């Protein structure tokens, strides 16, 4: 038996001579005395302790087999997948004028047409439902609720076909929530709407500056009112984009929500993320363009701080879990408003990274997207591989102008993972895996 390579060892807080062992692969956590840790390293544990650590995947029988299992996990996940997820960009228009909008270089009055909607329906029914796959659609924009008739045109027939075939279908919205009224949700829910990902950028003052209407008027109060109105009908996932200057004020948003009766039991996950640069151009080392690296000292301070403040107030937030970049999954597809296909919604700013069209099909993108870029010694032997898998390809693209290397998160996790684990111990692990099942 050997200690797993996907393992982090930290001193146990307030207990000198004891250690916490955390498996990034299994998500298990144990506390050991120094004597037992030495015995685990030397292979001299008693049978009971050895069996317990084996079950927690902190000890492994064959380190080479463990490494191989990680190297092949994405491929095996793809080969056994029985679901299809499409992100459908209904338009690139918006009723807000956020100065930092990552679609800023290419937004405009561009809308998905009825003929593209028909192509989507035919493709999903023929190629996905026809093969017995469960289907989930994420309607995206721009602002997807500027295209409600198209949501009806796409979701209606797909829902019917899914029902006939006996597969699951649901859809979500990534929306600014200004149009997410109760009547809209009541209309869309019977078609399969289950969740909405919405954004509040901190306090009213910050949010209204960052996310104003085209008129310049603030959107904060309307969004909070809409969340309150619909959170008993669908799951609201709350995000927010923070900057170096203002992240410390974000907990005041959570206090405001609590004051409004938007309590932790009424919404889904809360997760804040740093503002990223606009898509479509390389930013290189331009520090003012937005955050392209989780290793920046202010981010490694801000992320655990906001997680702590979120958990302290009882809201559910993310937990480290095994997750890889969306471009690695063959059954995930982004369908742009014009029928062009991509592997990530943020990549539509780079037309050369289109992988095909609905009309012509999907071309080989393994080289352009540098799939498996993380399958190198440095990553396969890294303790953080299970929770990283090479990080976010968009960030590499923004920095380098090509997906030519991993977005290494070692610096970020070196600074934050121990804090995250201790938070989970303090707050009873009320963090949950991100997103939906």
């Amino acid at each position, binding site marked *: 038996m050997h200690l797993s390579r996907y393992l982090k060892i930290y001193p*146990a807080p307030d*207990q000198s*001579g*004891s250690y*916490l062992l955390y*498996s990034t*692969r*299994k*998500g*298990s*956590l*144990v*506390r*050991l*005395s120094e*004597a*037992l840790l030495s015995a685990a390293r030397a292979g001299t544990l008693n049978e009971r*302790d050895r069996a*317990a*650590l084996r079950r*927690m*995947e902190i000890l492994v029988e064959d380190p080479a087999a463990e490494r191989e299992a990680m190297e092949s*996990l*994405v491929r*095996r*996940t793809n080969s056994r*997948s029985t*679901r299809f*997820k499409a992100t459908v960009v209904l338009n690139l228009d918006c009723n807000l004028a956020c100065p930092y909008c990552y679609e800023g270089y290419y937004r405009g009055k561009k809308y998905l047409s009825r003929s593209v909607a028909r192509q989507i329906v035919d493709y999903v029914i023929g190629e996905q439902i026809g093969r017995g796959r469960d289907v*989930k659609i994420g309607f995206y924009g721009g602002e997807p609720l500027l295209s409600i008739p198209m949501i009806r045109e796409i979701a209606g027939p797909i829902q019917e076909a899914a029902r006939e075939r006996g597969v699951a279908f649901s859809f979500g919205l*990534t929306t600014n929530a200004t149009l997410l009224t109760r009547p809209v949700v009541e209309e869309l829910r019977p078609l399969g709407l289950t969740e909405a*990902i919405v954004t509040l950028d901190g306090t009213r003052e910050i949010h209204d500056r960052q996310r104003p209407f085209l008129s310049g008027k603030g959107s904060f109060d309307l969004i909070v009112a809409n969340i309150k109105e619909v959170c008993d009908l669908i799951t609201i*996932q709350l*995000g927010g984009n923070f900057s170096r200057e203002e992240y410390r004020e974000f907990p005041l948003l959570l206090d405001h929500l609590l004051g409004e009766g938007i309590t932790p039991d009424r919404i889904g996950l809360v*997760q804040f*993320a740093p503002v990223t640069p606009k898509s479509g151009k390389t930013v290189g080392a331009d520090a003012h363009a937005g955050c392209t690296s989780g290793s920046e000292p202010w981010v490694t301070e801000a992320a655990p701080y906001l997680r702590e403040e979120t958990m302290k107030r009882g809201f559910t937030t*993310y937990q480290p*879990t*095994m*997750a*890889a*970049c*969306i471009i*690695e*999954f063959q059954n*995930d597809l982004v369908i742009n408003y014009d029928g062009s296909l991509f592997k*990530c*919604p*943020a990549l539509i700013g780079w037309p050369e990274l289109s992988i095909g069209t609905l009309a012509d099909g999907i071309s080989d993108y393994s080289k352009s997207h540098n799939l498996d870029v993380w399958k190198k010694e440095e990553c396969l032997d890294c303790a953080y591989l299970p929770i990283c898998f090479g990080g*976010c390809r968009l960030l590499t693209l923004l920095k380098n102008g090509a997906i030519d290397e991993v977005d290494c998160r070692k610096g970020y996790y070196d600074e934050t993972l121990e804090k995250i684990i201790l938070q*989970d*111990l303090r707050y009873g*692990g009320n963090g949950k*895996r*991100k*997103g*939906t*099942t």
Partner: protein
Amino acid sequence: METKDNELVILEEGRDDTEELYTCCGGSTARQ
């Protein structure tokens, strides 16, 4: 509470399935 010498304390069992992989995109994550 002190960890006694030669004591192993399980604090978190972890995931039932280490084949369960999620996809991470745009701040949201979904199970594959």
